[in-house]
């Protein structure tokens, strides 16, 4: 089990990267896409069982380092790494 931290630019912050991706999608014919916001996903491997204390610690880490609260929002949840999911499907 991993702890997942997802970081996104705040809605009121202009996201030039997301805008560039949206423009590229439209050029490629994916015109049904109305908007793109680009963020970051962190997969943290932790030694301990994931209990509320671990989530609280990771949330502290997110607010201290992984996200900048001036421009970004973050959410913390348990989950599996993207690679684990791919292995399951294969």
């Amino acid at each position, binding site marked *: 089990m991993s702890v997942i931290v997802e970081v996104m630019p705040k809605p009121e912050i202009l996201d*030039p990267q997301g805008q560039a991706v949206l423009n590229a999608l439209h050029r490629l014919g994916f015109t049904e896409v109305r908007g793109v916001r680009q963020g970051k996903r962190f997969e943290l491997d932790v030694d301990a069982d994931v209990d509320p204390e671990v989530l609280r610690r990771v949330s502290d880490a997110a607010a201290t*380092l992984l996200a900048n609260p*001036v421009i970004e929002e973050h959410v913390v949840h348990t989950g599996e790494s993207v690679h684990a999911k791919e292995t399951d499907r294969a």
Partner: protein
Amino acid sequence: MRVGIVTFPGSLDDRDAARAVRYAGGQAVPLWHGDEDLSGVDAVVLPGGFSYGDYLRCGAIARFAPVMAAVVDRARAGMPVLGICNGFQILCEAHLLPGALMRNDRQTFVCRDQALTVANATTAWTSGYQEGQRIVVPLKSGEGGYVAPEATLDALEGEGRVVVRYAGSNPNGSLRDIAGITSENGRVVGLMPHPEHAIDALTGPGTDGLGFFSSVLASAVSA
């Protein structure tokens, strides 16, 4: 006066910053990111570059380098600190200055000689200029768009803490054309453009940037 220049892994402009200090008549003292004390310097410059490869966010990792604990402590006690480009990003990440720097709104790296208007000529780093003076120094950054909450922007303007503004067209989407700001006490200044590259007509667009370094030396004499 001894002015410390911090070198982080990925700093680019530490040598030019040291040269600017020497041109202004000061003694440049090299500081290393792993240092825990500041060798008794009277002021510090955080130079431009791409500290830690700009990983995570620009300045986000440098902010936690060992040397920064001392820089933050001394800055809060009134030591002058100048953050240029990546140094400005580090000062924002370290919460010595409010707001943040975002990717340029036009999605391209901007490299040009940039006209600026000096909006505050009373800080430790700009007292040698006149308010309203127009200067030209290089700007070279991909993540130079200054953003802050509306209330913070109003407070910065109300307290005269905008130090320099972009003159003419806004190069990167910075809110209210802000190119640089200062702390409440006017001792910490951060700006995206590079005054250290404009201290000698041979190697830059002119000498308009030298005033940042001569200002801090003059402030030490008068203090």
